[in-house]
């Protein structure tokens, strides 16, 4: 595929992800920090996010599986998840985490279980989309092109 085409696809896809709220301005900030001396910065941070998230989701599942749910511990995990998703710009995941924390405050176990399902779903969605976006990025670079950026979402 030609560089032009790849770049256009990348921009279109980026725009879609921003419009649908999967990503927010913080993701653009990450892109701004990537340059020739740190060409894999976004990939590195996103990979860390995936690892971290999978661990947190596991911890959340275990915490909610207990006879007596420790809501404080649960909240601590959600707080972490909210932090990391916010730091990379995974907006929808972050928003579910905010709702999740409120449910922890209310000590609503059923609500928390539903929220856990929701956050898992949102996480898997954003993971798929980020992987696709980063693949496009890699293709552009491999074809010798530069990665374009959407200015309107800074």
């Amino acid at each position: 595929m030609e560089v032009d085409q790849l770049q256009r696809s990348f921009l279109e896809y980026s725009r879609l992800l921003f419009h649908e709220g999967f990503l927010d301005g913080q993701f653009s900030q990450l892109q701004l920090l990537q340059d020739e001396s740190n060409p894999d910065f976004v990939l590195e941070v996103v990979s860390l996010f995936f690892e971290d998230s999978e661990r947190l989701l596991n911890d959340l599942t275990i915490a909610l599986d207990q006879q007596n749910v420790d809501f404080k511990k649960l909240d601590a995990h959600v707080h972490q998840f909210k932090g990391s998703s916010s730091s990379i710009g995974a907006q929808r995941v972050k928003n579910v985490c905010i709702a999740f924390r409120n449910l922890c405050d209310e000590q609503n176990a059923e609500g928390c279980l539903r929220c856990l399902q929701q956050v898992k779903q949102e996480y898997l969605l954003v993971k798929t989309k980020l992987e696709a976006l980063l693949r496009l990025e890699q293709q552009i670079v491999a074809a010798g092109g530069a990665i374009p950026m959407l200015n309107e979402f800074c």
Partner: protein
Amino acid sequence: MGMAAADAQFHVLAVDDSLIDRKLIERLLKTSSFQVTTVDSGSKALEFLGWHDDDDDVDVDVDDDERNNSNEAFVSPKNHQEVEVNLVITDYCMPGMTGYDLLKKMKESAFLRNIPVVIMSSENVPSRINRCLEEGAEEFILKPVRLSDVNKLRPHIMKSKSICKDIIQKPENQEKQDNNESTETQLQSQSQPQQTSQSNNNSSNKRKSMDEGLSPDRTRPRYNDMTVMSN
């Protein structure tokens, strides 16, 4: 410590228990030409800064006979900061020692109190913010941290840099006060012009780029023409 080394780069110590946030803050700081060390806890931060338990008792107004006679003990190796730290930026919510606890410990230490501290938090809680500012934090930054936030750090460092050096070198209050003025002027005349022009260039470039919504003016894999097309 030669003048050349002193005005080379400012060193920031970043404290955050989140690996992702440490990576992010490190990149943000390095992009803004700071030298960075990251640690994952308040206690590790204090260790790095060379703080020890008995620092709390050290008073700047030295009126203790023992101390007057044994200045060497005061600047003993264990109180010596191996690397000069010009600013500490710390997360508020951390297990064990919070950012606030770290701030407090630093302000209680005659050795560390002049290092500017900035607190970061994902939560916008006014009482928390006020508490930190009252305790002596220079600034409170809401997470997620952006480049524009990091640009605000330099003035805090410039303000405190020469004072910090003096604390390490001169144990006695009187001497320190006298020397503050002379070393400050020295530093200002020798290093300030160079530093300010450098930092002004850097920060104005970044500010300009951020305002225009374009990436900073550096060689990087970017293709700015595409933005015209996308309209």
